[in-house]
């Protein structure tokens, strides 16, 4: 049998495109309900202490106010901590909104005003008076570096640093070339364009339907059921469209707690939307201070790698991510020592943000590698090649595939890397210094257990369903392509249902595993339906397909036919009618191959090349070109795949040049909590970005050979830009973001 794959692997426009360009796509705050009440959150003005008094009388007196929830009248919720823990919770005590009078961070929600309309709720919230008893707070990580500790309990799914191998400090001391780079990545906030919101539709005896902004409808559902003591059958979470998340929707955030609490108490539908300011009051990329030391021979070959990171966490939870492990993985080196510690601050618990950990750790490693290239006089790309490894030395395993060298070669060629003059400040155009920078990127390729259902009806329509999400990643589209190919129907005949807790089980949509996991589940379910369909056709006496060998049959364009003689066959509806079935519906569950997981390491890789132009007098940096060459296994849809990388690169530009939550440590709060002052890239900041996918065949990583693309685009980008700025100016700025003041600073 010849396999035709007309959809997978080809560029396809988004199947949800029309809904998104006509305004028909509904996001969490856009679902309506009869008699909908509106909640407005009151946020703490102080960073630490307790609420001595909260006066809601004036607010309550406003006509149209229904109820004001505070810690004093909060309805009962589950007693035990574990009941508040969601699938992605780090070890510790999960934050419980309105739990007590204790203030743990600035911006903490301390009251919810519920009113008949949005304006009444907002207005009344301004009348809530709070008297605080403050305690001394700490929000300055550098000042708390001494208090850093190794988290006693590891976070599930997060590998702690590997044990040291060889003698890294000893090898460093005797290394002919030594490099030491201290760096800092500030706290960054996800800031999806859609602020977090939840609309809870009250259905009386039937429970509640919750439209939450989430990357995991089932994660939100089980959290709500467990916290409020509801039967899961009475809680349905429906989130067909998510206006970006980048990790902020992995945990159920406080808007959903508050909206559900109010709806249950008032027995009425309630919506809670956060303001943009309030988007700075929960999870964020943790500020992280790092030191990387590299020892190498004069030939650039690494003999010692040491990487230490200290990251912020909250007083409640030991949030952890993989920051330093990359330094023992990416290049060949026999003497490696990696340490990762946390320091507690009076802040909200950090939360996974696009390529959590790698974005930070690889930045530190890759600027150190650039310094090593400079110190040895070896071309930065050549230096990486000399240290290339085909084995994961952290775990002593081979890779399922690793086409990183092809990324280097193809990316360098596309970029015109050979035109780079090695010395810093050696390239200029008019008043601008020109710099070329390079960095490697890496991210884990994961697959998770996942289920999907496929339903074929006689009209030839196929519906596939799994609970995963599409946060802009293109999930709807790739699942539609996969389903269409697996069953042999056109894409127009496929309906993909996702973002609903009542659908077959799927993991949260994160970690870049959705395509590999949900994709494989949909593929399996559709293949089973196809087999069942062929089974029915074979069972039809007098049909051209009676008792035929299934391998000799093709299903395509709504027909089942003999591969060798396409005229001999039947339409799908004819097969189903003659067999007396009105639908074929099957569910399948897929798992990663346990043996491969033990024997192999699976990673996505990239090579990022950036060109910057720096105004010599004003210090203004423009990123003028980026080439990102990616090896990510099989690419299901080059069009949406490219967009994923573009998005990662753009966020990487923001990380390099713009993004930073600026704290006033006296007040213990983020001061630039809006888009006017917390800068993210705008259209004019973003140059032409060239994305290329190198050929990478991988039959081990996942059933479809897919590795995932959600995060790899950001990893390495900030380092490539920082390295380009060093090349342009001769100035190494390791304290992100690289702003004009730091470039003009003489010191």
């Amino acid at each position, binding site marked *: 049998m010849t396999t035709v794959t007309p959809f997978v692997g080809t560029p396809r*426009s*988004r199947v*949800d*495109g*029309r*809904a*998104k*360009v*006509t*305004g*028909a*796509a*509904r*996001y969490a*705050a*856009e679902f*309506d309900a009869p008699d909908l009440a509106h909640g407005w959150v009151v946020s703490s003005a102080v960073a630490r202490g307790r609420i001595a008094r909260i006066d809601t009388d004036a607010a309550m007196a406003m006509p149209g106010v229904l109820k004001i929830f505070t810690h004093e009248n909060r309805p009962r919720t589950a007693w035990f901590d574990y009941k508040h823990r969601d699938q992605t919770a780090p070890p510790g005590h999960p934050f419980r909104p309105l739990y007590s009078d204790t203030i743990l961070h600035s911006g903490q929600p301390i009251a919810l005003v519920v009113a008949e*309309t*949005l*304006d009444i709720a907002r207005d009344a919230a301004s009348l809530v008076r709070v008297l605080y008893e403050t305690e001394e707070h700490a929000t300055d990580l550098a000042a708390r570096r001494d208090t850093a500790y190794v988290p006693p309990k590891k976070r599930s799914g997060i590998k702690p640093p590997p044990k040291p191998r060889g003698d890294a400090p000893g090898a460093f001391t005797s290394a002919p070339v030594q490099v030491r780079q201290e760096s800092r990545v500030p706290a960054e906030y996800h*800031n*999806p*364009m*859609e*602020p977090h919101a939840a609309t809870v539709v009250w259905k009386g005896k039937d429970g509640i339907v919750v439209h939450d902004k989430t990357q995991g409808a089932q994660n939100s559902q089980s959290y709500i059921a467990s916290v409020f003591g509801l039967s899961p059958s009475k809680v349905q979470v429906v989130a067909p*469209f998510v*206006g*970006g*998340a*980048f990790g902020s929707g992995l945990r159920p955030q406080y808007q959903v707690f508050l909206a559900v609490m109010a709806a249950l108490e008032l027995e009425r539908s309630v919506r809670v*939307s956060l*303001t*943009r300011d309030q988007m700075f009051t929960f999870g964020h990329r943790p500020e992280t201070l790092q030191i990387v030391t590299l020892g190498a021979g004069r030939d650039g070959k690494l003999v010692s790698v040491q990487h230490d990171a200290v990251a912020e966490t909250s007083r409640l939870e030991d949030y952890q991510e993989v920051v330093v492990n990359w330094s023992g993985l990416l290049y060949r080196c026999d003497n490696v020592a990696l340490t990762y510690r946390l320091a507690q601050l009076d802040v909200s618990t950090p939360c996974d943000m696009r390529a959590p950990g790698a974005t930070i750790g690889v930045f530190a490693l890759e600027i150190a590698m650039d310094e090593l290239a400079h110190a040895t006089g070896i071309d930065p790309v050549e230096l990486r090649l000399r240290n290339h490894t085909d084995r994961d030395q952290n775990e002593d395993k081979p890779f399922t595939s690793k086409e990183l060298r092809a990324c280097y070669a193809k990316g360098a060629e596309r970029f015109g890397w050979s035109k780079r003059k090695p010395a810093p400040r050696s390239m200029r155009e008019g008043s601008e210094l020109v710099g070329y920078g390079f960095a490697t990127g890496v991210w884990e390729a994961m697959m998770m257990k996942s289920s999907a259902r496929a339903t074929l009806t006689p009209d030839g329509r196929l519906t596939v369903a799994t609970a995963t999400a599409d*946060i*802009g*990643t*293109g999930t709807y589209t790739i699942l539609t392509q996969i389903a269409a190919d697996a069953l042999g129907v056109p894409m127009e005949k496929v309906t993909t249902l996702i973002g609903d807790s009542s659908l077959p089980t799927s993991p949260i949509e994160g970690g870049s595993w959705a395509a590999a996991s949900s994709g494989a589940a949909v593929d399996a379910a559709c293949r089973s339906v196809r087999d069942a369909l062929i089974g029915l056709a074979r069972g039809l006496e007098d049909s051209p397909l009676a008792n035929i060998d299934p391998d000799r049959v093709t299903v395509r364009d709504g027909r089942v036919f003999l591969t060798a003689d396409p005229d001999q066959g039947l339409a799908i509806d004819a097969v189903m009618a003659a067999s007396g079935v009105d639908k074929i519906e099957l569910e399948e569950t897929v798992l990663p191959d346990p043996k491969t997981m033990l024997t192999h390491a699976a990673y996505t890789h990239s090579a990022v090349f950036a060109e910057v132009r720096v105004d010599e007098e004003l210090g203004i940096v423009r990123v003028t070109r980026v080439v990102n060459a990616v090896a990510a296994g099989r690419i299901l849809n080059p*069009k*949406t795949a*490219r*967009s*994923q990388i*573009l*998005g*990662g*690169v*753009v*966020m990487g530009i923001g990380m390099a040049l713009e993004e930073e939550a600026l704290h006033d440590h006296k007040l213990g709060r983020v001061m630039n909590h*809006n*888009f*006017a002052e917390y800068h*993210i*890239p*705008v*259209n*004019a*900041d*973003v140059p*032409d*970005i060239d994305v290329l996918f190198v050929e990478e065949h991988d039959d081990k990583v996942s059933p479809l050979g897919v590795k995932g693309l959600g995060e790899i685009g950001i990893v390495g980008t900030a380092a490539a830009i920082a390295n380009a700025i060093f090349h342009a100016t001769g100035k190494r700025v390791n304290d992100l973001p690289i702003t004009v003041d730091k470039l003009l600073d003489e010191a």
Partner: protein
Amino acid sequence: MAPPIAPHTIDLTINGTAHRLDVAPWTTLLDLLREDLKLTGTKKGCDHGQCGACTVLVDGKRVNSCLTLAVMKDGATVTTVEGLARNGQLHPVQEAFIARDAFQCGYCTPGQLCSAVGLMAEGHAHSAEEIRELMSGNLCRCGAYANIVAAVQDALAAQSTQREAAE
């Protein structure tokens, strides 16, 4: 307690339909569209005029509806993303956005589309550089900028071919 403030009655033509509406003096055009008229295609990204998600066309000009009080627009004609397509036929900018994959999550998209339609009417944008600059009031956290520029270029090219054909 201050006495309740009387609403004002205004006339607005929204996506071709005439509306007579009672609005509070503080109600923004954005809240009027989203909360009262359930036209949720127009998005709220910041409510402070900093992101462009709420961009709509008022008398053909692009404005941030979150910074526009509804009472100030008595008699105006408003086009939102829901009104760009005609008789089920997508506007060329909408077509171009789909073809160029000029969005990911889609949340900034209604604002980008209205902004692009406004920009085309302004007639200032010719090069990619100018499009970038003049579309910079519309943030996209998904980072679809390169594709947005390509889509607007396509739409502009289609517009000028059409004009030439008409001449």
